[in-house]
């Protein structure tokens, strides 16, 4: 019997604006049997998404050059006629994309869009039958009141609902293969868990094959049978998921697995002092009619790391910006025992956090120049010292941001925050935009600097495992309020508030067996939403 998916020696070349071309995929081969589930894992630039798109022939007509062969459900994708390819797409193999908001047509009702797809592959079906099928699949993916909600437009759904709707569209024609391209990357962790559970159930029910493309090893652990690790367009290691995750053979896959932050990480002991650097009392911040932060009180002591964790909309970013003085609170009190310049910030986005027209040395020097306390020679010396401190070559003073990678740019951002000799640094999602191997390095750097300089850190993030790795105490935020706080170990090992419990239950883990067990436990805890 032929495999569901058979990829042999696949190469994909994209041509960029100049005459050069980029090889995204370089001689990739793999197979997927009917009903099986394969995870394509890699960091950005590994070629995993390009591969997924190639399976449906989506590069056709874009100028990309494809070599090798791809067979999906018997169709030779690269040589098939347009009409045959259209029959494959959605009819026998369906794709679920990363961003459900932009992936659905904003002008039409969701049910109508699903009905349209259904009628493409069942031309004799009546409009009523198509709409009925749409309501049926929307219901199957867990959207309450499906028949009525089918008439709503995409922007009227929440993020998780939209992704369910996309999955419903994929189900409509009962495909034999489901290709999911980073289906949960844009979602909160609790919603992510629900979507992955849904995919698992659907597979069990329909027997369809699954190709799951993701950068998150935890996501694959619980959802696939086999995994293929990709780097620079090539396959690095492949095998059953339990084997690859527990005992990876290749150095790259080993580095990848080790870099994943674990919920049960052991933290180096720290010795925080008693004196209070920063005290916030009942902070509130409103934007028009929405309340982003709703009465938060906290203290930060010298030398400690306070983790602030929450999903999107929890208010943690606004809180962070209020603590350093970038945003003024609408009410509440903020007291600090150090001058304002001693409160600094490390930002999330390595692209927008550095002025592209200024050299990295000058960006770091900026706070020193603004203070006008040191002369030029002293400033340059200090900047070189800081560059060295964050692991960059001091001779790169005059290079520009675009010459550096994301991880390196974050290091520059850290150096800049260190320049005015701060006492407290608020890190606002400092590693979320980085690949997982880079994340570990930057988090390690932050820990090192904190120890050496006796700094306090407020670490704001949505990734629970990363927060645990660095924090002494943790605040859990939901809808602008702190729902739980305490020493990190206590909060993670014995959470008291139901929201904290739900969050922790949703975090993906690397062990497939444990992942399955947690899935069963989750069904009891999480509401559908």
């Amino acid at each position, binding site marked *: 019997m032929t495999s569901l998916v058979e990829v042999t020696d696949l190469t994909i070349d994209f041509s960029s604006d100049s005459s050069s071309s980029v090889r995204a995929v370089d001689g990739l081969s793999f197979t997927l049997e009917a009903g099986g589930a394969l995870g394509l894992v890699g960091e950005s630039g590994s070629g995993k998404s390009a591969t997924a798109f190639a399976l*449906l022939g*989506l590069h056709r007509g874009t100028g990309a050059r494809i070599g090798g062969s791809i067979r999906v459900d018997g169709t030779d994708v690269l040589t098939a006629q347009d009409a045959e*390819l*259209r*029959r*494959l*797409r*959605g*009819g026998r193999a*369906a*794709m679920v*994309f990363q*961003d459900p908001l*932009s*992936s*659905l*047509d*904003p*002008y039409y009702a969701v049910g109508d*869009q699903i009905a*349209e*797809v259904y009628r*493409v*592959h069942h031309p004799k079906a009546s409009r009523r039958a198509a709409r009925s099928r749409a309501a049926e699949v929307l219901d199957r993916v867990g959207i309450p009141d499906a028949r009525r909600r089918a008439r709503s*437009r995409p*922007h009227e759904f929440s993020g998780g609902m939209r992704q369910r709707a*996309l999955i419903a*569209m994929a189900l409509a024609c009962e495909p034999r293969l489901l290709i999911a391209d980073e289906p949960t990357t844009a979602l909160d962790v609790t919603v992510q868990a629900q979507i992955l559970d849904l995919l698992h159930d659907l597979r069990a029910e329909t027997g369809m094959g699954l190709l799951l493309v993701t950068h998150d090893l935890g996501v694959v652990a619980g959802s696939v049978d086999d995994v293929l690790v990709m780097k620079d367009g090539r396959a690095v290691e492949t095998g059953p998921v339990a084997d690859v995750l527990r005992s990876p053979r290749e150095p790259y896959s080993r580095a990848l697995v080790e870099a994943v932050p674990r919920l049960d990480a052991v933290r180096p002991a720290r010795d925080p002092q008693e004196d209070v650097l920063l005290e916030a009392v009942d902070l509130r911040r409103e934007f028009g009619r929405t309340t982003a932060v709703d009465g938060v009180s906290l203290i930060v002591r010298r030398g400690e790391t306070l983790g602030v964790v929450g999903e999107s909309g929890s208010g943690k970013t606004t809180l962070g910006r209020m603590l350093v003085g970038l945003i003024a609170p609408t009410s509440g009190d903020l007291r600090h025992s150090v001058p304002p310049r001693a409160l600094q910030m490390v930002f999330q986005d390595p692209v927008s956090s550095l002025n592209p027209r200024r050299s990295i040395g000058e960006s770091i020097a900026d706070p020193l120049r603004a203070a006008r306390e040191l002369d030029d020679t002293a400033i340059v010396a200090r900047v070189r010292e800081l560059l060295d401190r964050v692991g960059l070559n001091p001779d790169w003073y005059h290079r520009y941001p675009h010459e550096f990678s994301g991880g390196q740019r974050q290091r520059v951002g850290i150096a800049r925050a260190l320049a005015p000799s701060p006492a407290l640094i608020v890190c606002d999602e400092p590693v979320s935009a980085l690949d997982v191997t880079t994340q570990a390095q930057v988090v390690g750097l932050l820990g090192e600097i904190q120890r050496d300089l006796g700094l306090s850190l407020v670490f704001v993030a949505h990734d629970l495992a990363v927060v645990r790795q660095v924090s002494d105490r943790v605040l859990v935020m939901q809808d602008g309020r702190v729902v739980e706080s305490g020493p990190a170990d206590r909060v993670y090992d014995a959470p008291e508030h139901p929201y904290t419990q739900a969050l922790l239950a949703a975090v993906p883990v690397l062990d497939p067996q444990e992942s399955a067990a947690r899935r069963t436990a989750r069904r009891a805890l999480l509401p559908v939403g």
Partner: protein
Amino acid sequence: MTGLLTFLLRRAGSAVLVLLALSAVLYAVFYIAPGDPAQLACGPKCGAEQLAQVRQNLALGDPVWLQYWHFLQGIVTGHDYSTGTGTEHCGAPCLGLSYQSGEQVTGILGEKLPATASLAIGAMVLWLIMGVGSGLVSAVRRGRFTERALTGFTLVGTATPVFITGILLLMLFCSVLQWLPYPSYVPFTEDPEQWAWNLVLPWFALAFLESAKYARITRSSLLETLAEDHVRTFRAYGVGERAIVWRHALRGALPPVIALSAMDFGTMFGGAVLTETLFGIPGIGQKLVTSVRTEDLPVVLGVTLAMGCFVVLANAVADVLYALADRRVVLT
């Protein structure tokens, strides 16, 4: 639904505010301008007796804001003017009185409007069809030649002022090829066929440059929409290219084009003024120019205000159409 309603009300409200501000500014410019307002309103050939009457009509003794208030009132409820032989009632909307010709401005506008409307609407229809049509076609059939040709055509087209296009067309079709006689305006009510024939050259002159611009904008708007994520989704589900363009891409590609055509209304009035002057079409544009030459300021003020109002209204209507077409705009 309430979101849409609030939006409509807010938009209508802001349009009214803008109209008020516009009328205030224009009024201020004309009546606070250097020189004797009465003399300005009456014109250079004004006799002393008439001058006195004008002074009385304008109530120049009153403070400026009161004069303006009377002006506004006149627009809404009408105004009574004293002439040599008694009083004349100027019905609402009263935009003033031309002392040189003795006619009411509103009347003048009403007389001249059909010609301008013939010119403007005909040209607009022509350029929308030509421009949007060729833009759509060239987007669907991509090719380096089409893009280069269109870009080149657009560059020359938008650069050329309408009176040059007009003269060149005149020379080509009337003098060299002799396919058409020198155009001379014939009202629609007199002879529809002649009306159309005499407007062909002016229509093309006005439409020529605009259609090039619209072709380019439509093309790039459509190309952009075709590359968007949601179009990709339907392609990934096997929907044919034709359905993708008609059902999914056009709806997103057209709103910017609509928005542009609203803004273009203003430019078009400018173009109309030039075209009417060139081809001798007796519309409000030509009237504006002749009034400036004879220094008949009430007419200038009235026509300018009327044109400004049309533009503000056109923009408001376009905004509403845009919002209806794209519900997301309403929510922001």
